[in-house]
């Protein structure tokens, strides 16, 4: 049995396209990346420059210390590698094969599940959570 995707109409949209904050968390955009930054923990002095300068939220912190990249969101801009002190060289932006991650692609407009998720998120995070069990 197939259920019809819940595609929102123009009547359902919030005024002015206003959406609840935080929806970008639900779209994995790491697929835009062309360079992959690699962090070498042994060289890291924990200055946290990379964390401060990351324009996304792709550098994770655990117990007050720098942790691994969140490659689902890192777009490979290379700013972290640029800001990493040259004396330590803990980050190198290297073009290489991407870590294997799940990516939501805008090309996925053909993917009904993606279309439905995008549409529902435009109106309500709560509804999207109920439908897709996303956190």
């Amino acid at each position: 049995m197939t259920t019809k995707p819940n595609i929102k109409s123009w009547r359902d949209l919030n005024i002015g396209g206003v959406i609840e904050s935080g929806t970008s968390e639900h779209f994995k955009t790491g697929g835009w990346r062309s360079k992959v930054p690699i962090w070498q923990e042994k060289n890291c002095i924990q200055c946290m420059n990379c964390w401060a300068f990351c324009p996304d939220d792709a550098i994770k912190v655990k117990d007050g210390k720098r942790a691994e990249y969140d490659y689902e969101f890192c777009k490979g801009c290379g700013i972290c590698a640029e800001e990493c002190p040259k004396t330590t060289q803990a980050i190198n932006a290297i073009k290489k094969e991407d870590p294997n991650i799940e990516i939501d692609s805008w090309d996925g407009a053909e993917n009904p599940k993606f279309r439905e998720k995008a549409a529902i998120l435009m109106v309500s995070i709560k509804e999207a959570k109920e439908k897709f069990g996303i956190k």
Partner: protein
Amino acid sequence: MQKTIVARTGNEAVAEAMRQINPDVCAAYPITPATEIMQIFSTFVADGLVKTNLITAESEHSAMSACVGSAASGARTMTATAAQGLALMHEILYIASGLRLPIVMADVNRALSGPINIHCDHSDTMAERDSGWIQIFSENSQEAYDNLIQAVRIAEHKDVLLPAMVTTDGFIISHGMERLEMYPDEEIQKFIGEYKPAYNLLNVENPITVGSLVLTDYYMEHKRAQHEAMKNSVKVIKDIGKEFGKIFGKEYDMIEKYKIDDADYILICLGSTAGTTKVAVEELRQEGMKVGLVKIRVFRPFPAEDIVNAIKNAKSVAILDRSESLSTQAGPVATEVKAALYDAAINIPIKPYIYGLGGREIYVEQIKNVFKSIKDLKKTEPVSYLGVKE
């Protein structure tokens, strides 16, 4: 109601209306012939007559951007500009309407450069006719004052939520001193009511995203919603125009019909030229010619149905455009009136004119000649220039 009769220029009348509206925020940049509006209003701010936060921006692009930020934060927001200033706002005008922010702007009509010119024509407003703003034209200072007050209510109405511009003809209205009936401050406040914004960007209890990316999947749906809001605004404009009449004594509609009931020949125009045309109508009627005027007060949304109903029994119609679209067909007013007639399957001979560009004077005698030029009009003619040096 105690009305105060004063002598005011159009710019003074607009500034007085802004004082009585008492917006939360005004962001503006000076430009002839609109400079005075904010100059006068800034004295009201300095004298503590309004609680407005006045932002003197470094350009019109910045002024409109500040207006968008302010309106998205739930503040009642106004501005004023003209010509090049409006053109510099162009990019942000679409953002204001797309975000459905009920910003109200006084636009003093002035010709767009080049050649550089500071005098009246409607090219600035017409260049923004597809920007999603409601556009209301004024015939004189009184209408500018009345329209600005109504524009606040119209823009903020829950079925509309679109920005609105109220225009006055540069220098002709903006710097011409006229009799103005002003209404008491408290009556204006009562009429416009408290502003209840649709959303508030600064509410930390309920964080929202404003201006997010919408690609192939939903951009079109947002435009469809704006289309509906623009359609809804017709009823709102009419209702508020009637309500305004009940309270303040002068009713407003999408168009004004002047002596058209038995008119064989009708002229369509907008702005201050409507006043000149009324004199021409009176004089020609004394000579026995049955003529009338349809003044378009609201150009966006376009009152197609009202215009068709007003002119359908005329023998012929002249349309005056105070802007060039350089399509080689006709100006924007004539083009849209013709489209409306086609939709209604009515074929009346039309004579479109372009006149008054860059402040070129228009006289009663010229308008009388326009009426005479359509007396034996058998079929629609190509556009011609009125008052040009051949």
